[in-house]
């Protein structure tokens, strides 16, 4: 398990040596959202060939965030926390390719088609601790931009400056490796033996 401190924006090259199971910390600007409406609107922009109102910088993280603008235009950063990325599986392959992503993040992993798109584009997936809000929120240093403010706070598309956001576990690397696919396969392979062990334990309990 190697540790990487990445300065953003990332490139295909800067994530190339990172492998599944490694730990990363991110410093720089990240683009975040937590919701379906933002994903749908990104698709509308892509379909229409319109430029997004925010510079993606190669990083897209499923990170609901509660930030509030003060009257003087500065921001109060209350908290952030990841959401489950598999909810957005249908969107991700296209986003990875068309938005030129090199770091995708959230929690719970992504589907196989996204893993393939990540391999093609040179992109990693980082798992953020769900329920790690007190730790991760301290890494958010500045709110740089908030778009689509008609959405509830966590559904907006925002750019945040982070310092040493982490530790984040690499769940998918840029070479087709996915901890999620591997663990799913492992669990399904183990299931017959797990059920056989349950049978044995049940028989022991009945005989006791």
């Amino acid at each position, binding site marked *: 398990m190697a540790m990487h401190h990445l300065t953003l924006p990332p490139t295909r090259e800067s994530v190339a040596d990172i492998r599944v*199971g490694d730990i990363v910390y991110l410093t720089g600007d990240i683009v975040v959202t937590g919701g379906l409406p933002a994903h749908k609107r990104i698709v509308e922009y892509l379909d229409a060939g319109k430029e997004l109102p925010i510079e993606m910088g190669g990083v897209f993280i499923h990170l609901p965030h*509660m930030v509030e603008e003060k009257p003087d235009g500065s921001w109060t950063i209350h908290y952030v926390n990841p959401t489950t990325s598999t909810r957005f599986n249908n969107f991700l392959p296209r986003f990875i390719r068309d938005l030129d992503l090199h770091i995708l993040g959230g929690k719970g992993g992504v589907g196989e088609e996204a893993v393939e798109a990540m391999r093609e584009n040179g992109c990693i997936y980082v798992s953020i*601790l*769900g329920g790690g809000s*007190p730790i991760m929120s301290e890494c958010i240093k500045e709110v740089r931009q908030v778009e689509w403010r008609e959405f509830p706070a966590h559904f907006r598309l925002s750019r945040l400056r982070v310092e040493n956001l982490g530790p984040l*576990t690499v769940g998918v690397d840029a070479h087709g490796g996915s901890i999620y696919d591997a663990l799913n396969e492992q*669990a399904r392979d*183990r299931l017959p033996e797990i059920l056989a062990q349950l*049978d044995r334990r049940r028989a022991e309990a009945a005989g006791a």
Partner: protein
Amino acid sequence: MIDEALIQEVTADLYSAALRRVPDDTKRALAAARDRETSENARATLDLMLRSTALAEKKDTFVCSDNGFPIYSVEIGGRAHWSGDLKAAITRGFNQLVGTISPPLLKHVANPLTNERGGPGKDMPAINVDLIGDADYIDITCIPKALGSGRFASIKTFIAPSLADIEAYVMDVIIDAGSQHCPPVIVGVGIGGNFDMTAKLASRATYREIGSINPEPLLAAMEERLTEAANATGFGPMGTGGETTALAVHIDYAFGHGYTPVAVCFNCWINRRAKARIYNDGRVERIF
């Protein structure tokens, strides 16, 4: 006599407490899991979880941004006396807190017909009521149910299943949830009754204290072997590998007919729940 104002106050306090504090039984279980884990990554993740719970307490802030689907489980003692409108008091306490809590809440409550978010809405907060025998108190438990773990609950109706059939189904649901529900989870299993009873049994089973022994020996043995089985899958903390996928499997049952619904649900690792007991004389005791 328990009055409306007290119910309202307790209701508000419980939701706030549930969002900020990982219960003691859960912290103990996480620490024990960390000490048992042989995978370095899994140990580090469990350590991070414990650090997060400590920091949330120190900063008096939320452990998770998802303040969840708000559920109040109300158990009314047969000898409890209260005045006023219980439902109105709970709803008022909840709404008052939502409007004033710091830091502010994200608006997760949604209209399922339009997917519009923003609440408050119909039947919010959810209030489940049960009657308990010979007791001079009302128990209120608040469970903010997040999307990450709520999404993977499942129910299936069998005809006269064997324990092996039930256990195989529980394992299927656990494997389908895989890495996604913020493991290590507490697995709740309900067996029997009818459709809604089964789901309620499963849900209530997750509230039980981790480490407590099921009073039914058959179920105690089943819980033990299913916990081992869940942990043999290898999904691990946050689903990135390890030997701790479930902190506990808790099972409850009810007599039913030949058709037997089985429900399986999850609480994520922060296992948010807060419970208070309000006695007729106005004393309030926090259970967890």
